[in-house]
């Protein structure tokens, strides 16, 4: 058996990105940070997609993570990034533990629509409650790192480094998950659920586990986004945000744990330049790319990189 090259590749890329903190200009570092945070949510969408489920509501967990951090910071002044990260993930997973019991029973379009409905319920709650900041959202305090409170510029670099580490760990763990029994069962369930059941496995448990995993990564992404931007508002959980996750997942394809992050970086780059050069055509570009990928590259852009090997 060949050695799995992916963990080494993750470590190498992470080292390069960490070293990049020294040379990258501020704007690009910030862009990468946001893209990676978003990529974490996309990673969750991809995880569900491998099992044949498309979530149009991953913004729910992105928003839950973001608001868990935002509200804690706003009301208590607690600003430790590690603490907020754990808290955000815990809140997301706690909600997913309950909703997952319902969601894991649904498939296809119904899963997509029910996930959309739950995220819109959360959006409705956020918009309507004055305590949580309504449509304006609220601000977070300056992040601190285990008691160390750096000045703003250093803090931004540290946050970038932390994000890269979180992404590397998440990518490694999720990759291992894909290669585990559970990962293979998810793919089998996508192809034919009934047969998986006949083999003695529980499709419900497979989807439930994937759902929890997706909530955890999206929650982490939400916390990092909130801390980096220093502000949370209900658009974090709006369905267009969820739609963007699906877009990146689809364009990247489900072939690899690198695809969500590469896709998210590409998306943020295109967005930055499209806004500057072609106003009012940003969504059009997204839509056109999406159509072309669906029509001509069913495996996602990653299938170009992976070549024939992935298809056999």
């Amino acid at each position, binding site marked *: 058996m060949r050695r799995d090259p992916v963990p080494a590749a993750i470590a190498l890329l992470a080292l390069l990105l960490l070293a990049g903190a020294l040379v990258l200009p501020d704007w690009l570092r910030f862009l990468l940070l946001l893209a990676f945070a978003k990529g974490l949510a996309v990673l969750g969408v991809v995880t569900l997609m491998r099992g044949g489920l*498309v979530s149009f509501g991953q913004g729910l967990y992105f928003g839950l993570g973001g608001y868990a951090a935002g509200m804690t910071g706003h009301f208590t002044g607690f600003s430790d990034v590690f603490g907020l990260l754990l808290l955000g993930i815990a809140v997301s997973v706690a909600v997913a533990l309950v909703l997952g019991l*319902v969601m894991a*029973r*649904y498939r*296809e*379009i*119904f899963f*997509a*629509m*029910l996930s*959309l*409905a*739950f995220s*819109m*319920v*959360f*959006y*409705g*709650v956020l*918009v*309507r*409650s004055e305590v949580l900041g309504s449509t304006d959202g609220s601000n977070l305090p300056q992040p601190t790192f285990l008691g160390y409170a750096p000045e703003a510029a250093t803090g931004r670099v540290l946050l970038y480094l932390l994000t890269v580490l979180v992404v590397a760990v998440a990518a490694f763990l999720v990759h291992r998950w894909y290669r585990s029994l559970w990962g293979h069962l998810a793919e089998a369930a996508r192809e*034919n*659920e*009934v*047969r998986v059941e006949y083999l003695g496995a529980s499709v419900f448990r497979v989807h439930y586990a994937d759902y929890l995993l997706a909530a955890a990564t999206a929650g982490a992404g939400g916390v990092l986004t909130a801390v980096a931007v220093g502000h949370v508002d209900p658009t974090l959980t709006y*369905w*267009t945000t969820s*739609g963007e996750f*699906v*877009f990146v997942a*689809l364009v990247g394809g489900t072939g690899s744990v690198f695809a969500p992050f590469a896709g998210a970086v590409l998306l943020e780059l295109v967005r930055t330049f499209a806004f500057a050069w072609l106003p*009012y*055509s*940003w*969504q*059009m570009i*997204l*839509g*056109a790319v*999406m*159509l072309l990928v*669906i*029509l001509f590259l069913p495996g996602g852009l990653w299938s170009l990189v992976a070549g024939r090997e992935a298809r056999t």
Partner: protein
Amino acid sequence: MTTTIAIVLDGLLYAAWLFLVAVGLTLVYGVMRILNVAHGSLYALGAYVAAWAVQLWFANRLPAAAGLLLLPLAALLVGVVAGTAIERGVLRFTYGRHELVLLLVTYALFLILEDLVKLVFGVDPCFAYQPYGLLGVVRIGRLPYSLYDLVLIGLAVVVGLSVWLWLEKTRSGRLLLAVIHDREMAMAMGIDVGRLFTVTFAAGATLAALGGALAAPRISVVPGIGVEVIVLAFAVVATGGLGSVPGAMIGSLVVGLVRAVAVHLLPQVELFVIYAVMAAVLAVRPQGLFARAEVRRI
């Protein structure tokens, strides 16, 4: 008492508007198995074209009463032109793909259309308030109510009845029902499914545009109205059952009345009570209130 009347009327009005949009969505899904996200853009397009036509009409001081007819005409124009263009230009290349893929295709179309609308009509709000005042106000009990709104409710009933009559009593409608029931068998019997798809999609698009055109005088037409309506229409259709016309009717009534109760008695929950209803219905009956459960294939 007045509150009760207001709740019922507001609920019916909201339901009428929802139904106009949702019935097109459910029809397209029933026949083509496409959950059309771009339905919201067609709604917005209908609203914009209607507003533009009304502005032009009243700016030139043409006979005011005939201005009302502009609304359905604009909807028909948008539905036939844009509907046919989308179906022939894009959708027909994707038939046979998975339902989820089709959902994503229409999501892509939705993104493209949203920006097209912005490029063509700009981002400033359009107003077409003139038709709204034309019909005047009636008093129901002690409640003054705009006649335009009552006409809207009546029109939704008429549209619902026409769709039902079309499906049940005409030849092309029966053919459509056959396709909804079993596409392969319908094809084997010699029904030209491709042509029916084009007609259905254009009809669905016209209904979406009609919803937009009739709403245009009551709202300010701004970018983003398509997004709002499509999520609501999804909720309605999912509650009633995907692909079922009676389902769309019951779904809009439930959602419309629940929302009206919330608006009048507990405004804080207005925005999410609709999705809460949908989530509750789906949690108990995954296929919605009116659709049949699909058989799982082994």
